[in-house]
């Protein structure tokens, strides 16, 4: 995952490969978008154009779906995506302090990406592991029972 892929060839081959696997029908649109988002880190405008063309679905519709779901991003994301669970069970066991520490450490507000393209900080809906709140997720790794003091160490593992 790198920030702001501009290589149109890579975008094209990724889109073709994913659609080949999923099938070119509208009901596959969300699986297709999810997989491309996972492979490229986000959904570049060129990819959305290509999907619209191949699925014969209007561009407006492809974009409206891509912008609706929280896990799909139409903006480039950092190499590491830090997700903070902002749900009530995490909130009442000290989530707010962890969130403030994350913002301080990364110098980011929710939804922002660092200039060097290293980090993106976002909030996520409940991850369902509320027994060990507060919970954060860095890329695919889940951390439970997080305290503000641990934030620095956790982030350091990805530097």
């Amino acid at each position: 995952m790198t920030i702001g892929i501009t290589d149109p060839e890579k975008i094209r081959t990724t889109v073709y490969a994913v659609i080949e696997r999923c099938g070119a029908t509208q009901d596959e649109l969300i699986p297709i978008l999810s997989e491309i988002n996972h492979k490229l880190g986000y959904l570049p405008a060129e990819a959305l154009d290509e999907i619209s063309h191949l699925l014969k679905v209007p561009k407006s519709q492809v974009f409206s779906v891509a912008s609706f779901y929280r896990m799909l991003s139409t903006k480039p994301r950092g190499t590491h995506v830090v997700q903070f669970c902002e749900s009530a069970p995490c909130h009442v066991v000290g989530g707010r302090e962890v969130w403030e520490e994350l913002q301080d450490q990364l110098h980011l507000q929710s939804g922002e990406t660092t200039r060097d393209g290293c980090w993106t900080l976002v909030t996520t809906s409940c991850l369902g592991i509320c027994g060990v709140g507060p919970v954060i997720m860095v890329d695919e790794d889940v951390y439970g029972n997080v305290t503000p003091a641990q934030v620095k160490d956790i982030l350091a593992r990805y530097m």
Partner: protein
Amino acid sequence: MKYYRSHVLVCVDPECLRKGAHEVLDSLQDELVAQGLIDEVQVLETSRLGGCSNGPEMMVYPEGVHYSGLTVDDIPYLVEEHFLKGRVVQKFIAPTISFADEELSAPKAKEVRVVLRNCGKIDPENIEDYIAEDGYMALAKVLTEMTPEQVIDEIIRSGLRGRGGAGFPAGKKWQLARMNPGDVKYLTCNADEGDPGAFMNRRVLEGDPHSVLEGMIIAAYVIGANHGYVYCRAEYPVAVRTLNIAIQQARAFGFLGENIFGSGFSFDIEVRKGAGAFVCGEETALIASIEGKRGEPRPRPPFPAVKGLWGKPTNNNNVETYANVPQIILKGADWFASMGTAKSKGTKTFAVAGDVKYTGLIEVPLGITIREVIYDVGGGIKDNKGFKAVQIGGPMGGCLPASALDLPIDYESLSSAGAMMGSGGLVVMDDETCMVDIARFFMDFTQDESCGKCTPCRVGTRRILEVLERICAGKGRDGDIETLEMLCQDIMATSLCGLGQGAPNPVVSTLKHFRDEYIAHIYEKRCPAKVCKALITYAILPDVCTGCMVCARNCPVEAIHGERRKVHTIDPDVCIRCGICMQVCNFNAVSVN
């Protein structure tokens, strides 16, 4: 099936995996092979055993020994001692054994496990384990002995109601979908468990996926559907994986596919993953999302039973509703109806979270009181603090005060008290929680998750949030409470779907039960729970302060002044109310007002 003298359950929850559960599993397999024990000891992957805080962890049966904190290097010794010499290795025993055991072993006193009966006990990735627990027996009975009408009659008599929250009688729903004419019908399973704090469905999908599939196949036979979808949220990758494995195995055994049990009935299931949208838990939004569209609800009627997926009659139920079905068929409607209250039958799973001693999953008969759940099953409030409120029903539920503790948990009692059953999230809050802040918090969630289609929900929730943020920031003004009440009423009356109609509930319920806190914030500029930062000040008690300078050294903004061995003071204009001084003071000399 093979006979094993010992079963080892290794937790493969995301947290344990991160700590190396896979490596431990591999090493365990290798070592058992090396010692020639692989035919005597069965190794199973399972979901959460205890807390995972000290993973990787495993459970060994029949002894019921819980090991944790294992590394690959520990495995040869463990295998030699435990499985070869038969000696329990004390040093690996999980420190929290009393609690960790309770999650898995016999349920706590007031629990009854129906939906969760197999979770943690069987290998979810092995269909034979499920079959050994009478799995797919109900399906066989339905397909060979019962007509669809008889099944509907049995489910109606059992009193099973939708476990997704609304509580519509499941049998009636099936009847509607069956009656509606159409060559093609669909069945959907709502596994988009988006309520913060609710993870009952995840656990069922990860621990006992076949019970859900079996319930779905029975429902499909009844309504006449040949294709079904499980719509699972993408936040649950393990559940999606387990489900897919279960579906493959069910196909291989002939429980899914063409001509099931030679009955002429054919049905297949596909898993659809969401992409992060809370509103997709609403059934019409869920259907739109499966079709590959924006997950926006549409007005009902027509109900999905008439016009659902791709315009065809569709039956949609929640994971837990389907998981109850095989048990009802096998044990009978009377057995199920013997649990619960007059109108709410059976059991309900709850995910207990927040300031309670034992957080986690429970399953209790309906009609149990909130007090029993919190104190008898949940062990009471953490750190011996006082109880303040319990939030039941997810973000659209309500906050209930201490006076509601003896309320029985059933659909009607909760609704009339201003909360709701919801999908089963139960967040307990202690007396250091600010209820205005909590209401603000829930509104922040719902306004964020509002899909934006209808104005009352899109704009209304935003307006409520603005007022609440102002109140928490110490800028509340006369008339705010009245504005909130008006907004809540309008949004509830005019929103399109359950999200908007329920969104004001946290505000309505806190205004009803904790009005004095709103008044304190607005008129006295005071946060009684000392949570809202704009409304609190930190001060040093001159009689207690020893002048040790610890607070001054730790203050991130240098707001604390004073010389060594002299009383310090905090400059309120510089202070950012981070509370660090209070945490570091060894003499409890910092007070908050």
